[in-house]
């Protein structure tokens, strides 16, 4: 026991004292924030004024489009683009042309090509009935711009039709306004006002957090085993400790580093607390508004981290013991890492609908359960029996895994030379 403690202590101190640990502790939250923050910043890149010409033989219709586009900058109604901050929407400077000739069309297109004009909204005479317009632009991939234009056109066409049928401007405005739907998230602990994007992002961030920590600390264990094997420290160690003590000490020691890191994140997060969240919302916009995750996640994160980490640490320790070089390690670690990658690939689907049979079975399968079950609890707390069953299966499989991998480890760490074949590994497991 004393030996295990000594090994834990060494593994722990050596890692916590490195620059890598400090850098990772600081960078991880920045990286996470960046994941939300950066795309939105990039969207604002085209926020300079757009010069647009609206062409229609109907000056009233053209005028409506013009007003609508001008208004889009400071309001108008909230829309499918509500994720995007208002101040991210481009400014429009709109002029109107009321003589739609082919000659004008060519002229305007030439202007766009020369860069003197950003876009042309071409409204044919029958557009009110066909509801078809053409928008010429160099920049068709900027969906913010095109969706704003499209919305303005839709609004103008509808309003024109309504006014022809005798509705007043105010009446048609009401008719055309967006319906504001409040999404109320019902779970076992009650109801929370919830915004769809926020409800998606927070579990996704948590998923990313547990995925990264499990993977990174699992790989630390593999590196550590390989270091002892390739530098032959292992021989000196084994003259003092048993392979089991060594493997246990290593996995616990590295895992403790992981828990320390998570604790630092949690602590700094709660210290920054609501103030930090308020700042984050300012920066990120309202996408995190009303994002809500039940408080049980706070203690479930370490629980599922420990389960996931222990499972993968055993597997990675066995791999570290089997291989002799980095190249071999990379080949061997891929199949083991695959279930983890699968979790990430399926993450979106599972967060959207955490109660599908697929989500259920993945949250029971030992290699994916710590991550998937954790995400499910973050989205919508599953029945207690499911959570307990998942943890139970994890613990049982962990027991088997420790037995299996410690046997591979014990023989592997003293084997040098070529990479073992599968039959050889099976033989190692059978060694008493």
């Amino acid at each position: 026991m004393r030996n295990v403690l000594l090994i834990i202590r060494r593994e722990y101190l050596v890692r916590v004292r490195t620059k890598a640990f400090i850098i990772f502790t600081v960078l991880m939250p920045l990286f996470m924030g960046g994941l939300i923050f950066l795309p939105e910043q990039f969207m604002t890149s085209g926020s300079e004024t757009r010069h647009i010409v609206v062409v229609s033989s109907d000056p009233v219709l053209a005028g409506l489009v013009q007003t609508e586009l001008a208004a889009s900058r400071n309001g108008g109604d909230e829309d499918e683009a509500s994720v995007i901050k208002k101040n991210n929407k481009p400014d429009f400077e709109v002029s109107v042309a009321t003589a739609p000739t082919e000659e004008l069309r060519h002229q305007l297109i030439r202007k766009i090509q020369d860069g003197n004009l950003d876009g042309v909204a071409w409204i044919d005479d029958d557009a009110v009935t066909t509801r078809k317009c053409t928008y010429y632009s160099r920049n068709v991939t900027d969906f913010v711009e095109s969706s704003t234009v499209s919305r303005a056109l839709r609004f103008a066409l509808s309003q024109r039709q309504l006014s022809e049928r005798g509705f007043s401007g105010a009446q048609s405005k009401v008719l055309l306004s967006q319906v504001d739907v409040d999404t109320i998230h019902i779970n076992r602990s009650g109801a929370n006002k919830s915004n769809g994007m926020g409800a998606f992002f927070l579990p996704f961030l948590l998923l990313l957090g547990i995925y990264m920590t499990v993977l990174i600390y699992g790989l630390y264990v593999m590196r550590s085993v390989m270091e002892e094997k390739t530098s032959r420290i292992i021989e000196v160690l084994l003259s003092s400790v048993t392979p089991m003590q060594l493997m246990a000490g290593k996995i616990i020691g590295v895992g403790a580093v992981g828990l320390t890191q998570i604790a630092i994140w949690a602590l700094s997060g709660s210290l920054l607390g609501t103030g930090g969240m308020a700042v984050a919302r300012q920066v990120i916009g309202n996408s995190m508004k009303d994002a809500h995750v039940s408080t049980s996640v706070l203690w479930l994160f370490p629980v599922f981290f420990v389960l996931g980490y222990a499972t993968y640490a055993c597997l990675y320790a066995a791999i570290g013991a089997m291989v002799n070089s980095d190249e071999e390690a990379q080949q061997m670690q891929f199949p083991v890492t695959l279930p983890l990658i699968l979790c990430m690939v399926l993450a979106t689907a599972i967060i959207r609908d955490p109660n599908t049979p697929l989500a259920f079975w993945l949250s029971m399968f030992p290699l994916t359960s710590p991550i998937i079950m954790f995400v499910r609890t973050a989205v919508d707390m599953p029945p207690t029996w499911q959570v307990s069953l998942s943890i139970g299966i994890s613990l049982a499989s962990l027991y088997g895994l420790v037995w299996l991998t410690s046997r591979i480890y014990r023989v592997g760490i003293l084997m040098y030379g070529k990479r073992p074949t599968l039959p050889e590994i099976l033989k190692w497991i059978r060694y008493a």
Partner: protein
Amino acid sequence: MPLTLELDSVTKTYDEFVAVDNLSFNIAEGEVFGLLGPNGAGKTSSIRMMIGIIVPDSGAVRVFGEPLSRKVLDRVGYLPEERGFYKKMKVIENLVFFAQLKGLSVSEATRRAHQWLERLELGRWASSKIEELSKGMQQKVQFVAAVIHDPDFLILDEPFSGLDPASSLVLKDALLDLKMQGKTILFSTHRMDTVERLCDSICLVNQGRSVLLGVLNEIKASYGRSSIQLEYEGELPLLKDPELVASSNDFGNYVELRLTPGADAQRFLQLAMRTATIRRFEMVEPSLEEIFIDTVHSTKSVISHA
């Protein structure tokens, strides 16, 4: 005299390959014992079984009269053939860690580590990282790791490899000191001159089997003074004559040779003087190197005939 180590018909097989084949020998307390043999003879496998890293398929290993256990192993020091340290950790941290695993307290481990480093002229390197040290210095640190817990039984796998003559001398003196204190020491090495000067007994293994075992002086005596050392200038075609010379190791102006049984040394000298100027002629006990080469060759031929 109580026995420090007993190997009793120990066998270890890897798949089809027999690494150690029915090996038996004992080491008495206070003895310096040389475990010799060519590469791949099973030396390292034997040593690993003595410290419980691997378990023999059959046979028994006893240390201090007891079967192997952690408690017994705390009294054993081990210097592995390949040096191994945590390269990013300081010399002193490495030493204290290994000493703690052997049961020492931090303060005691630190004190002894500094003491030993001073003695091996490494005092000013204590706070350097292992990776900053030369190979020879790492070797000496490894030796400190093997002796820091003051073991009664010291197992050294190739302790002198990679050391310059000055460092070898320091290490040899340290070993002699330990021998004087009554420690039991087991060496594994190729360096016959060192073995010859330090060891009381030897075991020569080849292809996993013991081919020569006993007290060094007795072994040498049993070969008799049938060896000739000769310094010469000129040609010695008679070295090729199987009626006179059984085996020879010719360096061009110096030769060590063994006469064919029954051949007369005086007659050999007379014949040699006809073709070369003889500067020195001496009849001696065979050197261990000769015995080594001779025995390994003869066991090889026995095995290949079988």
